[in-house]
C-alpha cells in the first residue's frame, strides 16, 4: 500500500489519485469523496486556517446518504422543533450535540461557518463538551439547513435537550469558582499581612501598627468565613440536625472558633491572631472539593447524551400521506413508516414489509432479527434493510425502552451503599473531641487557671483541628481520579473508588462487553482452487458494500481492490447479487446462492450458480479477555456472566473462560434480580456492561462500569466509564482502588496518631497556639504530599 495520507483525516489513501484537489497551489490527496468534499467546503469558505492549527487529525468523513439528509427535514416540522428548542423573542434557541469533533480547531471551524449565515444570531461551540448553543431565526433558516451546513464540514449534529440536573451542576460549578476566587485571593492578602506580623514579633512593631494590621486581616477574613466557607457550615448544620455528625462539623467549629478567638484578640488587644490559618484552611479544603466536583461534572457532561437513543422524529402515515411528526406525539393506533437505517420511534406491530432489525441495545441479542407482517417491534431498535409499515401499540413513554428507563430510575433509589468510612471515623472523632474541648475549658476555668482557659481550649481545637483528617480522603481520591483518568478510566462517582477494595464478585455482560458485539469472520471454507481466499473475500466485500446489513460490515476490512460490478440487486433477508465480468455473482444465504447446504455457515458465495466458498461468522471475544479473566480469578474475584443472549454460545463461552456462574437469556429485570440475590448473600458486586439492557442492573450493583463502546444511556448511568476499547482497564481500576485505599489508610493513620499525641499535651496547656498551628500545618502538608504520590505512579 502507498504511504500517502489523506489531507483531511490522515488515514492512508487506498484509492490512488482518484480523489485530489488543487489547494493553495498544491495537489492534495484524499482517501474518499467525503473528505474531499469537506476540504473543498472549508477552502471555499476561507477557513483553511483550520488545517494549520488543528492539533488532531479529523475523523474520516463518511458521506451522508441522501436519504438521511432528507430525513433532517423532519426537524423543520413546527411540532418537532417546539419539542427540542426554546423560543426567545423571535429567535429559536437550540442545543446541538456534535459528534466527530477532535480538537479546539473543530469548534472554531463550525462556529465560523455558522456565523457566516445571517439568520444565525449567535453560535457558541464548546469543544470540551462537544455541544453547540445556537440562536437563529427559524423563519429565515430552517434547522435542517443548519444541520446540513455542519454535515458539510464532516461533523454530525443532532438536537439535544440537556437535563435539569446538568444545569444544576453548571450553576454549582460556577459557585465553586467564585468561592475559590474569594478564598484564594483573600488568603494571599491575609498571608502577606501575617508575614508583617510575624516579623514584627521578632524585630518589634509599634502597637498601633500591629493593631491596624490585625484589624485589616479581620476585615479581609470576614468574606472568607461568611461566603467561601458557607458550604461547610450548611453541611455541618444539616448533619447535626440529622444527628449524623460528618467531617464538616469539626471543620466549621475549628474555623469559627479560631476566627472568633482571633477577632476577640484583635478587638481587645490581647493574645494571638490566626486569620491566615482560617483563610488558608478554607482555601485548601475548597480547592480539594472543587477538583473532585469538576471531575464529576466533566464525567457527567461527557456521558449525558440521553436523548440520542430516544427517537425524536417519526414518519406518520395520515390521510394526506406520509408526514414527519414528533415521536412523543404518537398515539396507539397511529401508523408509522420506518425506512432502512432509521430508529423505531414506538413499540408496535408490523403491518407491511419485511426487514431485519437490530435489538441488541434492548435485549443483548447481537444477531439481527428478521421481522415480517404481524411481528412485534420495539422502540429504540434499528431497522436495517427493508421498509416497514408499523402500527403503534403503545406511546413512547410506555414502550419497552421507556420501561427500561423507568426500571433504571427505580433501582437508582435502591442503590446499595457502603457507609463511608471517613464519615464514620469523623463521627466517632468529633464527638470525643467536642467532649474533650468542653472538659478542658471547664477544668481550666474552675480549677486551674480561669485566665488561660480560653487560650488553652483554642490550642486544643487548633492542634486537633481535623484539617489533616478531613484532607486525608478527598486529596487521595482527587489524585486517584486524575491518575485513572489519564490511564483511560473515567470515574463519575468518587465513592466508587472507596468501595473498590471491598468488591468480591464481578458480573459481566456478554454481547458487546466480553465480545466485540459485531460479526467478524471466523472461518472460510473454500470449495474452489480458482480463487485465493483473499480474492474471494474481496469479491464478497465488493458486493457487500451495497448493503447496510451488519453482516456486510464484517467484510469491510477485507476490501482490498475495487471491482467493476453491474446490475447489483439487494434481496432483503436473503442476499445480494450482481454481475462481475459478465458472470452472475451471488452472496447470501445457502438458498439464495443455490448451494446445497453442506455446512452451518452463515454466508455463501456463488459464481454462475457454482459455490465458491462458505464463510462462518461469529461475535468474536475481545482479544484481551481470556488473560484478564484468569488474572482476576487468580486475585480471588468470583466472576459471573449475565447475558440476554440465549444461544449455546453463552455456555460455550462460559466454560471456555471458566467462569464461576452464568445465567443466559436474562431480561433486564432478571439481571437486576440476580444481582440483588448476590448482594443479599453478602457479596459486593461490580457490574461490567454496555447496553441499555444492562443499565437497570448498573444501579443494583455496588459499582457499575460501562465499556468504551457502550450506549450513551449505560455510560450515563455507570459509576465508571472506560474511555478506551480495552477491558484491561478494569484491572487498572481495581489496582487504582487498592492503592487509593492504602494511601487513605496511611493518611488517616498519621492524622489520628498525631491527634492522639497532641491532645493530652494541649489539654495540659503545654502547647501554645503557635505550636499548634505549626503542628497542624505540618500534618496537613504531610497528608497532601502523601496523596500526591498517587499521581506519580
Amino acid at each position, binding site marked *: 500500500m502507498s504511504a500517502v495520507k489523506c489531507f483531511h483525516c490522515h488515514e492512508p489513501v487506498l484509492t490512488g489519485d482518484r480523489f485530489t484537489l488543487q489547494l*493553495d497551489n498544491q495537489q492534495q490527496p484524499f482517501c474518499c469523496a467525503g473528505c474531499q468534499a469537506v476540504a473543498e467546503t472549508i477552502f471555499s469558505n*476561507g*477557513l*483553511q*486556517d483550520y*488545517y*494549520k*492549527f488543528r492539533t488532531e487529525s479529523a475523523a474520516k468523513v463518511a458521506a451522508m446518504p441522501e436519504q438521511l439528509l432528507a430525513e433532517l427535514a423532519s426537524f423543520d416540522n413546527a411540532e418537532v422543533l417546539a419539542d427540542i428548542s426554546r423560543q426567545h423573542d423571535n429567535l429559536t434557541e437550540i442545543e446541538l450535540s456534535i459528534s466527530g469533533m477532535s480538537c*479546539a*480547531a473543530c*469548534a*472554531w471551524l463550525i462556529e*465560523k461557518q455558522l456565523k457566516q449565515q445571517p439568520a444565525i444570531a449567535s453560535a457558541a*461551540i*464548546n*469543544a*470540551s*463538551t462537544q455541544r453547540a448553543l445556537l440562536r437563529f431565526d427559524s423563519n429565515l433558516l430552517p434547522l435542517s439547513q443548519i444541520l446540513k451546513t455542519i454535515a458539510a464540514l464532516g461533523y454530525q449534529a443532532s438536537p439535544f435537550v440537556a437535563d435539569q440536573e446538568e444545569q444544576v451542576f*453548571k450553576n454549582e460549578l*460556577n459557585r465553586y*469558582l*467564585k468561592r475559590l*476566587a*474569594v478564598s484564594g*485571593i*483573600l488568603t494571599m*492578602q491575609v498571608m502577606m499581612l501575617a508575614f508583617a506580623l510575624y516579623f514584627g514579633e521578632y524585630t518589634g512593631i*509599634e502597637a498601633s*501598627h500591629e493593631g*491596624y494590621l490585625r484589624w*485589616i486581616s479581620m*476585615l*479581609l477574613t470576614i468574606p472568607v468565613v461568611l461566603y467561601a466557607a458557607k458550604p461547610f457550615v450548611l453541611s455541618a448544620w444539616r448533619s447535626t440536625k440529622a444527628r449524623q455528625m460528618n467531617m464538616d462539623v469539626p471543620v466549621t467549629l475549628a474555623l469559627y472558633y479560631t476566627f472568633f478567638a482571633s477577632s476577640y484578640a484583635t478587638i481587645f488587644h490581647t493574645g494571638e491572631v490566626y486569620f491566615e490559618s482560617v483563610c488558608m484552611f478554607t482555601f485548601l479544603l475548597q480547592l480539594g472539593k472543587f477538583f473532585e466536583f469538576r471531575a464529576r461534572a466533566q464525567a457527567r457532561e461527557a456521558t449525558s447524551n440521553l436523548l440520542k437513543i430516544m427517537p425524536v422524529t417519526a414518519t406518520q402515515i395520515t390521510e394526506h400521506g406520509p408526514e414527519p411528526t414528533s415521536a412523543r406525539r404518537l398515539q396507539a393506533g397511529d401508523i408509522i413508516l420506518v425506512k432502512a437505517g432509521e430508529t423505531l420511534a414506538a413499540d408496535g406491530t408490523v403491518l407491511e414489509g419485511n426487514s431485519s432489525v437490530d435489538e441488541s441495545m434492548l435485549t443483548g441479542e447481537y444477531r439481527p432479527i428478521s421481522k415480517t407482517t404481524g411481528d412485534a417491534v420495539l422502540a429504540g431498535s434499528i431497522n436495517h434493510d427493508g421498509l416497514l409499515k408499523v402500527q403503534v401499540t403503545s406511546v413512547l413513554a410506555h414502550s419497552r425502552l421507556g420501561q427500561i428507563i423507568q426500571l433504571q430510575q427505580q433501582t437508582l433509589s435502591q442503590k446499595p451503599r457502603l457507609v463511608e468510612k471517613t464519615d464514620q471515623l469523623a463521627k466517632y472523632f468529633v464527638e470525643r473531641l467536642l467532649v474533650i474541648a468542653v472538659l478542658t475549658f471547664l477544668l481550666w476555668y474552675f480549677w486551674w487557671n480561669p485566665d488561660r482557659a480560653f487560650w488553652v481550649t483554642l490550642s486544643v481545637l487548633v492542634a486537633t483541628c481535623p484539617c489533616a483528617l478531613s484532607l486525608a480522603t478527598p486529596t487521595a481520591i482527587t489524585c486517584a481520579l486524575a491518575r485513572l483518568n489519564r490511564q483511560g478510566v473515567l470515574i463519575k462517582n468518587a465513592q466508587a473508588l472507596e468501595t473498590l477494595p471491598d468488591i468480591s464478585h464481578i458480573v459481566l455482560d456478554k454481547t458487546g462487553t466480553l465480545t466485540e458485539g459485531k460479526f467478524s469472520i471466523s472461518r472460510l471454507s473454500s470449495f474452489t482452487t480458482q480463487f485465493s481466499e483473499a480474492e474471494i473475500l474481496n469479491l464478497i466485500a465488493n458486493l457487500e458494500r451495497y448493503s447496510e446489513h451488519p453482516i456486510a460490515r464484517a467484510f469491510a476490512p477485507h476490501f482490498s481492490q475495487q471491482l467493476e460490478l453491474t446490475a447489483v440487486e439487494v434481496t432483503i433477508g436473503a442476499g445480494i447479487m450482481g454481475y462481475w465480468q459478465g458472470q452472475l455473482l451471488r452472496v447470501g444465504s445457502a438458498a439464495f446462492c443455490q448451494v446445497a447446504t453442506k455446512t452451518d455457515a452463515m454466508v455463501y458465495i456463488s459464481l454462475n450458480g457454482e459455490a465458491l466458498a462458505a464463510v462462518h461468522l461469529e461475535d468474536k471475544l475481545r482479544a484481551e479477555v481470556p488473560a484478564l479473566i484468569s488474572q482476576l480469578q487468580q486475585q480471588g474475584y468470583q466472576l459471573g456472566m449475565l447475558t440476554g443472549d440465549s444461544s449455546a454460545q453463552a455456555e460455550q463461552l462460559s466454560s471456555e473462560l471458566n467462569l464461576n456462574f452464568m445465567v443466559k437469556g436474562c431480561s433486564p429485570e432478571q439481571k437486576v434480580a440476580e444481582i440483588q440475590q448476590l448482594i443479599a448473600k453478602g457479596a459486593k458486586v461490580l457490574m461490567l456492561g454496555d447496553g441499555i439492557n444492562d443499565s437497570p442492573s448498573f444501579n443494583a450493583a455496588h459499582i457499575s462500569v460501562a465499556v468504551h463502546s457502550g450506549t450513551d444511556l449505560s455510560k450515563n448511568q455507570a459509576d465508571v466509564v472506560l474511555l478506551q476499547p480495552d477491558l484491561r482497564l478494569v484491572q487498572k481500576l481495581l489496582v487504582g482502588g487498592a492503592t487509593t485505599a492504602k494511601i487513605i489508610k496511611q493518611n488517616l493513620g498519621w492524622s489520628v496518631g498525631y491527634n492522639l499525641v497532641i491532645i493530652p499535651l494541649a489539654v495540659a496547656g503545654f502547647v501554645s497556639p503557635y505550636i499548634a498551628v505549626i503542628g497542624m500545618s505540618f500534618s496537613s502538608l504531610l497528608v497532601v504530599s502523601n496523596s500526591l504520590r498517587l499521581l506519580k505512579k
Partner: protein
Amino acid sequence: MSIIYVLIPIAILFVAIGIWIFFWAVRSKQFEDLEKEGFSILFDEDNKAKADEQKKPDDR
C-alpha cells in the same frame, strides 16, 4: 510608616475590583470552555487577506 494607613486600603480596593472582575467573568461564561478560546488568537479574523500571507510549513 503611617503611609500604610493609605496604601493598604488602596490595595484592598484593587483586590475588591479583581474579585468583582472574576465574578463577572464567571457570570459571562468565560470558564465554560477553556480549550477553544486558547486557539482563537491563532486564527485570523479576516480571511480575505490570506492570499498574500506566506504559507507556514505544516509542523507535523
